[in-house]
């Protein structure tokens, strides 16, 4: 962890609850804001690279700090959920790319491909962790 600290993102009390200190909330808002800043700023290769790099840095730093605050059972659930999500994303990318390729339309719909893949990954991650939590 470079900036984010595990105590900013405390362990959950229930599946849908998440304790976060004001530092954690500020960190999260700053990370999410970069997405909107990237959308609102005029298109420029260098600015895009900087914003993307900054977002990825803050995002992974926050994820690592959150992981550190999880107990062993939560980490196990998270690992299983991420594995399932990864497979789902790979399958989605292959299927979607194949469909777009057959219509010679990959370049135009790259953004849609990325967003769909991320959404599928997020849904599978959430569903897996919910099921594991319910089962145990």
């Amino acid at each position, binding site marked *: 962890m470079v900036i984010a600290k595990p105590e900013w993102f405390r*362990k*959950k*009390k229930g599946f849908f609850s998440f304790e976060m200190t004001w530092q954690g909330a500020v960190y999260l808002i700053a990370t999410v804001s970069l997405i909107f800043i990237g959308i609102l700023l005029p298109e420029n290769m260098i600015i895009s690279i900087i914003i993307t790099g900054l977002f990825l840095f803050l995002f992974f730093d926050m994820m690592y700090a959150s992981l550190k605050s999880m*107990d*062993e*059972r*939560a980490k196990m659930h998270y690992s299983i959920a991420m594995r399932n999500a990864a497979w789902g994303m790979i399958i989605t990318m292959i299927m979607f790319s194949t469909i777009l390729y057959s219509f010679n339309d990959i370049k135009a719909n790259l953004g849609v491909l990325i967003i769909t893949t991320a959404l599928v990954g997020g849904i599978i991650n959430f569903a897996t962790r919910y099921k594991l939590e319910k*089962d*145990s």
Partner: protein
Amino acid sequence: MLVEIMKTNIKQYRKELKMTQEELAEAVDVTRQTIIALEQGRYNPSLTLAYRVTKALKRRYIEDVFSLEEID
């Protein structure tokens, strides 16, 4: 076919110490959901966690708290 399951006496010892699940969870640095899963035998803890739970329940041996049983 024999299946191994983890049995625990966590609830019994916790009640003897008049401890809530939340208090035990705080003592061993896990969530209350993990304590619930442990008490119900739905989660097999790591050795480190098993030692911490045993210590928090003021028991001397891990075997007092956790035992492995075989059922058919």
